């Protein structure tokens, strides 16, 4: 009933509005006051252009400064600092271009509003001017491209040989984490071996798999290059760690990678931010389904010694799952090693970890 009343009131209001509107048009026709463009409204709009420039520009500047503190995720990687400098330098250049063009656009709109008796200046082209404003942006772009390309080549270049390797596998809707154990080699995995007890599809007949261990949190050492090997076992996901300025898709059937060097341990960052609950977060940043927005992992940056202790205290996946190991042995004994053969050859290539210091 109340809904009906509300609808009725709305309809009535619309009718009243419509009638008033019609009345305004009719009366303007009768009084002959309908001058379509060059009247009072022209100067009102011209003034509004100026008001918009000043008011809008003021609001933008205010809200930008007001929110600036909140919009910079604290940085904790070597390349992250470079990227941040490049980002704000580029933003400053863009800010100059933005200010010049917007001010001219609104100022000219105001200044050259219609005036009775004035005539527009017939100015169809000017080659010199056009060459100048083609070349200047071209030079600025060239320098931005050069800086971006240098940084891009460095960031995406091969990881240092002594990088710590972490494997991250995306699935709907959480991240699985695996470390290569003491032999520093990740064992073969095969998606056909995945089941409830073997989330990764680790082939336990592979010698390199024996000491691999899985974890619920990602631990990495401070000040040491870390190589993320990234996989997905169902749909696309993306590893996104805003604090490290790291992002890379997790693609089913195509392992990807990203390396970086953390600069600040979790404890240091907590102290720095004065937030004892702070954690580095890993978010999924490629839509993957219902709980995409909750697909998260915690990354803990340890001091190198702490990392080594943590690493040493982990128990291998094989030792925690003796039943699984037994069933693999049994299958191998029965002469059905097909699954092991089907494993991807690309993962059997030794990872470049021979000199890892842990």
């Amino acid at each position: 009933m109340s809904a009906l009343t509300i609808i009725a009131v709305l309809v009535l209001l619309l009718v009243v509005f419509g009638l008033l509107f019609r009345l305004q048009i009719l009366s303007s026709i009768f009084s002959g006051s309908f001058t379509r463009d060059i009247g009072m409204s022209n100067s009102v709009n011209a003034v509004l252009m100026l008001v918009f420039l000043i008011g809008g520009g003021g609001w933008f500047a205010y809200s930008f400064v007001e929110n600036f503190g909140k919009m910079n995720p604290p940085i904790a990687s070597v390349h992250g600092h470079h990227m941040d400098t490049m980002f704000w330098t580029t933003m400053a250049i863009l800010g100059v271009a933005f200010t010049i063009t917007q001010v001219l656009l609104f100022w000219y709109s105001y200044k050259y509003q219609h005036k009775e008796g004035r005539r527009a200046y017939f100015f169809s082209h000017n080659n010199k001017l056009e060459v100048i404003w083609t070349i200047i942006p071209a030079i600025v772009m060239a320098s931005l491209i050069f800086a971006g390309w240098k940084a891009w080549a460095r960031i995406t270049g091969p990881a240092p040989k002594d990088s710590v390797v972490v494997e991250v596998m995306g699935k709907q809707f959480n991240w699985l984490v695996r470390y290569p154990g003491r032999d520093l080699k990740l064992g073969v995995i095969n998606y056909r071996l995945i089941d409830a007890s073997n989330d990764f599809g680790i082939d336990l007949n592979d010698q390199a798999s024996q000491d691999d261990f899985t974890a619920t949190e990602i631990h990495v050492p401070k000040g040491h290059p870390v190589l993320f090997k990234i996989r997905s076992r169902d749909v696309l996901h993306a590893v996104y760690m805003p604090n490290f300025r790291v992002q890379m898709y997790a693609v089913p059937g195509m392992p990807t990678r990203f390396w970086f060097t953390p600069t600040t341990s979790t404890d240091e960052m907590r102290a720095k931010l004065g937030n004892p609950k702070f954690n580095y977060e890993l978010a999924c940043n490629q839509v993957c389904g219902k709980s995409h927005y909750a697909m998260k992992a915690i990354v803990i940056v340890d001091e190198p010694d702490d990392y080594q202790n943590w690493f040493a205290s982990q128990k291998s996946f094989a030792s925690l799952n003796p039943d699984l190991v037994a069933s693999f042995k049994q299958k191998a004994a029965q002469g059905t090693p097909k699954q092991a053969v089907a494993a991807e050859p690309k993962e059997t290539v030794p990872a470049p970890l021979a000199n890892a210091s842990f």
Partner: protein
Amino acid sequence: MSDMSAKPNLSAAIQAAGGIGTAPVPHTEHGDHAHDEHEHHDQHWLWKYVFSQDHKTIARQYLITGMFWAIIGGTLSSLFRLQLGWPEGTMEWLTPVLGKWIEGGKLNPEFYLALVTMHGTIMVFFVLTAGLSGTFSNFLIPLQVGARDMASGFMNMLSYWFFFLSSLIMFASLFLETGPASAGWTIYPPLSALPQAIPGSGMGMTMWLVSMVFFIVSQLLGGVNYVTTVINLRTRGMSMSKLPLTIWAFFLTAVLGILSFPVLFSAALLLVFDRSFGTSFFLSDIYIAGQALPNQGGSPVLFQHLFWFLGHPEVYIVIMPAMGMVSEILATNARKPIFGYRAMIGSLMGISLLSFVVWAHHMFVTGMNPFLGSVFMFLTLIIAVPSGVKVFNWIATLWRGNIRFTTAMLFSIGFVSLFISGGLTGIILGNATLDIQMHNTYFVVAHFHLVMGSSAFFGLFAGVYHWFPKMFGRMMDEKLGYVHFWLTFAGVYLVFLPMHYVGIAGFPRRYYAWTGFDGFSQFADLNKFISMAAIIAFLGQFIFIFNFFYSIFRGRRATQNPWNSNTLEWTTPIMPGHGNWPGEIPAVYRWPYDYSKPGSEADFIPQNVPYSQTQSSNLPYEQELAD
């Protein structure tokens, strides 16, 4: 005519431009169209208004269908902005509309993804491709090049009705039990290929693909027609270097569409194969819903290449018609020639060419070879140069003009402002290094909503306000237009500028809520603010809808050339019939931008006025042509 003009003392020569310009032209094609007119007099209404082959009727059909879709697309965005602004709030009150998608007062997260997917699909394809380019390419190409109709009226009709069929299928998919397509408007497989991954990838995705196939057919039929008409049916004297910039923009847009939509077709076809016939173009090594799938060897990245090979030209398909119309409207209402006409054409060509070699900047961090990333970064940032040239030329067009603020002019100025604001941040995103952090964040969302979403909408509004008198023979209300403009202009900035802050902070797009992450929870107030601004700006569009439909029936009657414009469409009768000009098609003698020419009494000289009648204002080389 006189009540509109800035100068009531226009010379008689100009007042009668249509008559004088056309009279001396030899009547070469007369027989043909005279026959046409008789034939269409007693048409059945079904052929006249529904299955019409008249380009003007087809344009109106595109426009009204596009407006319908814009309302749907806007409503969907209001729904997900409600969720993002008030993640803890209840949506119980929406149950009567959304039914089972509200669970215990909460929006279903999968339906949230369906909302963003359909919002993107509808806005990009159905509103800004079909509604914008479909409307104005159809309406203006024959009128501005001086043709009776499109090269093939029948194909043109098919183009609209394929679009209509495509619309029906897409609209029906909104009401499916399992929901419409939900994998994002970019429909990346495997998510879009596997119903086990998300229910929207079942029937919803099938209907999306079928609808899109019909849509592509429609685009190709239309595009071939536009290109053929511009090349072959220009009137006497209308060389390519005398075309209005609108036509140049529509022409190049059509070329882009013809070259890129078939690639989307192939991507869709291969995806259909993967979904229904067990192939593995895009699928490999997948374990889902407790089952290892047999597919091996496919690559999801391949799909992204195919998709963005269309997807990137697509954003220029959306924005270039707006650029063309804005150029035309700015010149007309500043009463000044467009600055650097040839540079404007050159930059359109440059943008068109480059738009085909920048697609992989959407894929810097998708696992693509980093070397490709550096190549595409280089090519992407180059595109800023022709875009910059356009902006500088628009601003130079305003300089020392004599500006009349019609509603169309306001929206054109707004377009330039939004294009600058959104375009500049593209320089961040085109830089592969910076894109590592910004990819798929709200920075991207803010960037493209300004540069191709809102800008293209502003171009669309400018076009509707400007050519409404030619479309419906009546004027739209200017006061309501002003309110509509200022509300929308402020609204767009209030929505999308703060969205950059959220993006710089790293908030991922397509998130149902950010409350699960400590790193993404600091902007709850700002998100609420954005949502409120977005919903108010959306509601403001109903002022336009009202103005539009009211003015069709009750608006002030238009005069023949209400804006004192130079282009040919204003030489037709107020409501041009089939064949556009009752007599001979006028011939063209000059470029379309002779505004405020020194020596001329009037501040405009239409294209069909020969130099021999404008002795006082001719430039030296023009005087030679006159003699």
